[in-house]
């Protein structure tokens, strides 16, 4: 009994002494540690704005941007804003910091925590991110070539979200310019273009990537309400000139005319469907003549969902495969998957092709094409 008492007494004393000394040291070091951490936090912002001595941080919930930091100099003047956001790259979430000067110029774009391929990130940092520096954030434009990496796409997502917060959303401004109020929502149903939006004021808006820039077309049915964007002013003006009329009346001697009319007509004619992969269909029209049916389908590829349009002639022959949304590596798709499509055109039976898996190899991207094509072929009355 006595020995047990002694044991517990000794243990208590040891515990007390240990607790006391740790508490004491913690009281001593805690303020220094907090100061260190604050200095470390300041570190990255000082890199962007070397004159800064104080930062003011604000958490935001924007879906992409999660923190806005304002940097102040010695005179307590705001000398810049740093927006921190995350977006999905190739290897997962990627943190990007965008420094913006008070005049709206991008000071620097920094890649933070990421799991991307080191070479790709290195290339981005060396070659492409410097091109963003000095650009006004409200009209930021990207190098089209580097759009081919998912890491660069993630950077663009964060920079665009920063632009929307700092300079206002250009799409909302476009809507206001055209006299429409309200918001927009991205829609996946009609996706014949880069992006499609449903407007709260009614109608749809398409974002088309043309050689001369980005074109936004607003329409309801075939009736156009207006256009905007960085595309050739000739096109924008021509569309705005026919406001209230059918897009088919667009008279314009321009190589992009066909693409614009086709995109709008495709969107309007698209009907929802409920298949395993196929979610919509529309007439397959070439030069104003309906040749068959186009099936739109989505299936999971290597990374995420890929959407393809499979056009079949009335006779059941495959006429065209078109990619609409690609979540997998674009370079890989262009070099290894797309070239294989040529050999499939004109076929009605695909079982043999799928058995050999010619264009798909063993990859997820190819497999997503196979999924959609299989179902579309059955709907077109060919392959069983």
């Amino acid at each position, binding site marked *: 009994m006595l020995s047990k008492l002694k044991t517990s007494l000794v243990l208590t004393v040891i515990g007390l002494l*240990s*607790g006391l000394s*740790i508490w004491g040291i*913690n009281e001593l070091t805690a303020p220094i540690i907090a100061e260190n951490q604050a200095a470390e936090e300041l570190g990255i912002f000082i890199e962007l704005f070397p004159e800064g001595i104080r930062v003011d941080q604000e958490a935001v919930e924007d879906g992409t941007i999660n923190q806005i930091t304002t940097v102040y100099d010695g005179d307590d003047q705001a000398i810049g804003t740093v927006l921190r956001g995350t977006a999905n790259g190739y*290897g997962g979430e990627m943190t990007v910091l965008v420094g913006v000067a008070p005049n709206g110029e991008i000071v620097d774009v920094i890649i933070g925590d990421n*799991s991307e391929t080191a070479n790709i990130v290195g290339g981005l940092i060396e070659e492409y991110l410097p091109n963003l520096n000095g650009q006004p954030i409200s009209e930021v434009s990207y190098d089209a070539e580097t759009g081919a990496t998912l890491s660069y796409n993630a950077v663009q997502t964060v920079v665009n979200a920063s632009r929307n917060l700092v300079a206002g959303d250009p799409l909302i401004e476009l809507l206001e310019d055209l006299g429409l109020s309200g918001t927009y929502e991205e829609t996946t149903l009609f996706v014949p273009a880069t992006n499609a939006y449903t407007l709260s004021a009614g109608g749809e808006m398409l974002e088309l990537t043309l050689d001369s820039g980005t074109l936004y077309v607003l329409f309801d049915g075939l009736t156009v309400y207006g256009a905007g964007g960085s595309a050739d002013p000739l096109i924008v003006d021509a569309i705005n000139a026919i406001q209230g009329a059918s897009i088919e009346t667009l008279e314009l001697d321009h190589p992009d005319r066909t693409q614009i009319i086709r995109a709008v007509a495709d969107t309007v004619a698209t009907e929802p469907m409920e298949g395993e992969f196929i979610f919509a269909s529309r007439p397959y029209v070439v030069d104003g003549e309906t040749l068959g049916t186009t099936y739109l389908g989505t299936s999971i590829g290597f990374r995420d969902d890929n959407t393809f349009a499979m056009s079949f002639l009335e006779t059941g022959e495959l006429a065209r495969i078109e990619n609409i949304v690609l979540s997998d590596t674009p370079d890989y798709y262009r070099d290894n998957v797309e070239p294989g499509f040529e050999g499939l055109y004109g076929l009605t039976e695909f079982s043999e092709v799928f058995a050999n898996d010619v264009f798909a190899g063993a990859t997820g991207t190819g497999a997503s094409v196979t999924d959609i094509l299989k179902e579309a072929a059955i709907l077109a009355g060919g392959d069983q």
Partner: protein
Amino acid sequence: MSATVFVTAILSSMLINNIILTRFLGVCPFLGVSNRIEKAMGMSVAVIFVMVIASAVTYLLYYYVLAPLEISYISTIAFILIIASLVQLVEMVIKKVSKKLYKGLGIYLPLITTNCAILGVVELNINAGFNAEYGMWNGFFVAVTTAFGAGLGFALILFAFSSIRERLEHAPVPESWKGIPVSLVVAAIMALAFIGLGGIA
């Protein structure tokens, strides 16, 4: 919460961030015990067992007791005491439940308290901040899964290594390289091979 999170957690803690080859946790048992497959497996089972339980208990302790009371600075003491008592507890339970199991695992259990793999994995789990990434309870399951994966990684390396070592004993190794030095060279080659797995991530 999809199953891929758990699969990723297991694969990454087992192979990509293997505790022995990339973090050097549990090197002592790796060099000491692993000259017989049977021994290596006994040790591994004991380690996996304690590692998973210790991760679960310390996760709850940290986020429900230490962090709310703002005394997370005593975490190291708390964790090592938890591990030490857990080992005692597990030893007693095994002794009561199965004499056979006790015979097999019993001798390894006391060694585990000072096996840095356990405390290391526990600390890594807390540092990883799973609760912030996945939420409190999902984070708990990710932490436990990660610990299980780390234990499997430990077992995998111990197993592979003991198999190699049985052959090494009959290999003509220079006198001064016999024993630990040549084992370390094998470990270095294995670590090089595991760098390749980093590419999967």
